[in-house]
């Protein structure tokens, strides 16, 4: 059986009650928002204070580490200078290895019964070689060996015959100009 509800209060009063209810809700929400904001503000302030302390500590650590490195400055400078010098040495050492190798190569390839009279290597590494021998085959052999990549260790780029003559003594005099690679 349904229940009939009759409200005997006048409509004005009912409207007034409803209105007050809404206002009360709005006020409660406003207060909650203010409380929340106050909470956020306190959290923010607390975080900033803690962070400030951490920043100060980290700055001190960094300054301490810098000071520690400063006390070791001399040792580090020694290492830097040493490294620079080694690098320079590496660029200088061995720049003459080709000249020495060519000098030794020519002596090594010179056949028996062949007399080198003059051997000079200039600053660019160009070689002037004068030799005498009693056999044309020795001349041929020496020039051939100097020109062979296998025998000259790929050190020689060009061989030019500057002069060739034979003497009354039966000897052949040859002058070569050798250009290195």
């Amino acid at each position: 059986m349904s229940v009939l509800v009759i409200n005997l209060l006048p409509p004005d009063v009912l409207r007034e009650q409803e209105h007050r209810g809404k206002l009360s809700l709005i006020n409660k929400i406003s207060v909650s928002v203010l409380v929340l904001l106050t909470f956020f503000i306190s959290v923010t302030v607390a975080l900033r204070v803690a962070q400030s302390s951490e920043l100060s500590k980290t700055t001190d650590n960094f300054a301490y580490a810098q000071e520690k490195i400063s006390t070791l400055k001399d040792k580090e400078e020694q290492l830097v200078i040493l490294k620079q010098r080694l690098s320079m040495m590496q660029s200088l050492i061995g720049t003459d290895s080709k000249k020495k190798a060519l000098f030794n190569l020519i002596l090594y390839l010179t056949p028996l019964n062949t007399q080198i009279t003059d051997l000079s290597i200039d600053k660019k590494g160009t070689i002037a070689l004068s030799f005498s021998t009693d056999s044309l085959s020795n001349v041929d052999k020496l020039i051939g060996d100097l020109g062979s990549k296998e025998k000259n260790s790929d050190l020689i780029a060009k061989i030019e015959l500057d002069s060739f003559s034979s003497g009354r003594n039966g000897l052949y005099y040859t002058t070569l100009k050798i250009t290195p690679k």
Partner: protein
Amino acid sequence: MIDKQLKELYNHYKTIMWPICTSVASVTILIFLIIPQLLSYLNVRGQISGLQTRADSLEAKAQDLQQMDEQKVTQDFQSAFTVLPVDPEIPSALVALQALAAQSGLKVGNTTYASGQRTPGKNSFTLNLTVTGSITGMRSFLMSLQSAIRIFQVDAISARFTKNNTLEAEITIAVYYDPSTNVKWSVEEEVPKFSSKEEELLTLLNQQVDNANQKIKAQEASYSAVPMGKLNLFD
């Protein structure tokens, strides 16, 4: 009259004034206080992190430097400056060359000096050496220049050979030195590390300097064995 009007206005709007004021205050606090502070917090957090990283790398660098063998570093340093000195040190270079020639069985004739180039990284002077001896001696001399106490680089060779397998040669040798000792030092730069080739070179340099020093000591010892002057001043 104005009071009455104000009172009417207040009575009309009093119900919504509190929510409006609260909303305005909340938005103002949010925009001008909370958000800037949070952004500032995040910014400073980044700075702290960067600073801590730098401090850690400096600590590691300090540890590396402290762990290094100071004696070895000093020895390497001295060897490097012996082989590539700051000044030309011409007399010592000449003595070293003549000693190498003599050890290889060559006789040293004339020696002349010529000032060389002065480009950064390639400062040098030139010594022209006239030597006579065997071909083997000459080869040995050229090889010994590699392990000498200075950096000797052969610029030119002019040799005249005789029938009995001997030669007379004029050798032009460039001798290097390096006057630069300035270093741009920075706290936060890494400690220099040596490659394996550089370590090998250092070992070689130390050996060369040790050998040269031993020879000098042996020579000095031989000089001291020879009595100098009168033993009794009143004889």
